[in-house]
């Protein structure tokens, strides 16, 4: 059994805005939100501004258990349902697939330790819920009344793309007609900054914050942490048509592989990242030359971008499709980057816009068609790539919907 799977609703909470219109305007006006971290002025971050989860949920006492990543996910899921105009009854047995990251807010969450004794007086009774991976999904299920097959996926920076891939597969193979999929994450707390700074993964620059995130540029020296969330309503095409849903795009294929090489560094020859891309093209049943552009993972670290550029050059041969790097606009949204980047790509597809990779002056490879100037561009097929710590590789192909 094989069903076609379409995206009929989206909710995006990003540093470029919280709705498609604002996000499009930010792209067109080159309006980004990079600033120095108050925890560590040597580090640049890309925060989400003006976000209040209660604007989406109303009163909801269990917000007390939601870390910032869960809050972004919940708000995005509520926004996606509203955007899809889907009935509560259709959500009853819908699936729920969430990509999540760890809560690294040590400063706020951890108790004082004196002589090995924990001072727990300031902790909630159920403080552990802010650390349990499925707390976000539980909250989404409570607020939206979703009761079907579900998974919480915590595969580092490919987590939310894998969550979307899993939802796609469940509908494709007939287990579900409707599924919500996406993720939310934030690592901008002092603990989050400390973790990635110690790992020497973060960008260190003296110049203006806007120039810090520079994927695929020779001078790149680390990623800029961001935050946000995005969720989507995925439907069996027959289900979507029956209810007269607006369709944004079709998901044509998904693939995931693992490097089995190192804890953080990508495998230098990119063998399994390449396999993920080859597999997704096969499932989508399209040739490499049918991909109109690649939305690259493009973190801005030396290793990731070199391997990714090499893999793209290899898979697509002498003439690569256009390649964009959305982390130059919103920073690295960690576990939620795949969902947020899918959301931004849907906005770009719908408005026939291809944004420049910001700060790209000296590309790390000359034979890859990196986009260095924002331009009008009508695309049909988009390949989205995400790679994560642990050697996680994920790829998704979407096709713009033409009614």
């Amino acid at each position, binding site marked *: 059994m094989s069903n076609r799977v379409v995206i009929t609703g989206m909710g995006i909470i990003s540093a470029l805005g919280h709705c498609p219109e604002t996000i499009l305007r930010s792209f067109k006006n080159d309006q980004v939100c990079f600033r120095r971290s108050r925890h560590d002025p040597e580090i640049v971050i890309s925060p989400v501004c003006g976000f209040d989860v209660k604007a989406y949920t109303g*009163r909801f006492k269990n917000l007390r258990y939601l870390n910032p990543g869960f809050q972004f996910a919940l708000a995005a899921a509520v926004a996606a349902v509203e955007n899809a105009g889907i009935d509560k009854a259709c959500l009853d047995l819908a699936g729920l697939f969430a990509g999540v990251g760890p809560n690294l807010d040590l400063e706020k969450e951890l108790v004082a330790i004196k002589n090995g004794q924990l001072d727990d007086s300031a902790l*909630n009774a159920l403080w552990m819920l802010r650390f349990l991976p499925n707390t976000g999904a539980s909250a989404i299920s409570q607020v939206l009344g979703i009761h079907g097959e579900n998974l919480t996926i915590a595969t580092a920076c490919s987590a939310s793309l894998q969550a979307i891939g899993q939802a796609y597969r469940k509908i494709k193979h007939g287990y579900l007609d409707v599924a919500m999929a996406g993720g939310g994450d934030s690592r901008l707390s002092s603990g989050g900054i400390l973790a990635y700074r110690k790992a020497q993964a973060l960008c260190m620059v003296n110049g203006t914050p806007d120039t810090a995130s520079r994927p695929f540029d020779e001078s790149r020296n680390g990623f800029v942490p961001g935050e946000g969330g995005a969720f989507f309503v995925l439907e069996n095409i027959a289900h979507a048509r029956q209810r007269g849903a607006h369709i944004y795009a079709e998901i044509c294929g998904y693939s995931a592989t693992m490097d089995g090489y190192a804890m953080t560094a990508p495998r230098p020859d990119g063998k399994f990242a390449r396999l993920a891309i080859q597999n997704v093209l096969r499932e989508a049943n399209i040739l490499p030359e049918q991909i109109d552009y690649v939305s690259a993972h493009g973190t801005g670290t030396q290793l990731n971008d070199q391997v990714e550029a090499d893999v793209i050059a290899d898979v697509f041969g002498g003439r690569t499709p256009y390649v964009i790097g959305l982390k130059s606009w919103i920073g690295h949204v960690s576990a939620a980057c795949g969902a947020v980047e899918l959301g931004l790509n849907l906005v770009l597809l719908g408005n026939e816009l291809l944004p420049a990779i910001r700060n790209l002056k000296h590309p790390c490879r000359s034979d890859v068609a990196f986009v260095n100037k924002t331009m009008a561009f009508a695309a049909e097929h988009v390949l989205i790539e995400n790679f994560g710590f642990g050697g996680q590789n994920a790829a998704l192909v979407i096709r713009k919907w033409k009614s």
Partner: protein
Amino acid sequence: MDIFKEIRQILVELLDVDEKEITTDTYLVRDLCAESIDFLELAVSLNNRFAIEINDDDLFLRNLRLYIQNIPDSQDRLAGLTGRFPFLSTKRIAEILADLDQGPVLKVKDLIAYIEWQTKSKKAA
């Protein structure tokens, strides 16, 4: 220290309700929809705020109905309960006994009575 205001603030934050919804006569379960997880949080918050020992079963009148069942027929229910819940006035216990059929009886004023009683016991000690 106004114990009512302190408790109200804790309830506002925990249950995400409006201050206006809470008086001393507000029922925790019937009016504020408090659930077991909320009572866990409330006990931790009250303990933290007032620095007193909290016995959850007493504070939340948890086994009230069981005690009532176990009071021998020969004994007066009012007298039986007064011994068991010394922080509640006889008047309040009579009120509770008349209210049992309407649902969970715990009110904000019972929390206040418990805190006052425990604070006094602590001082006396």
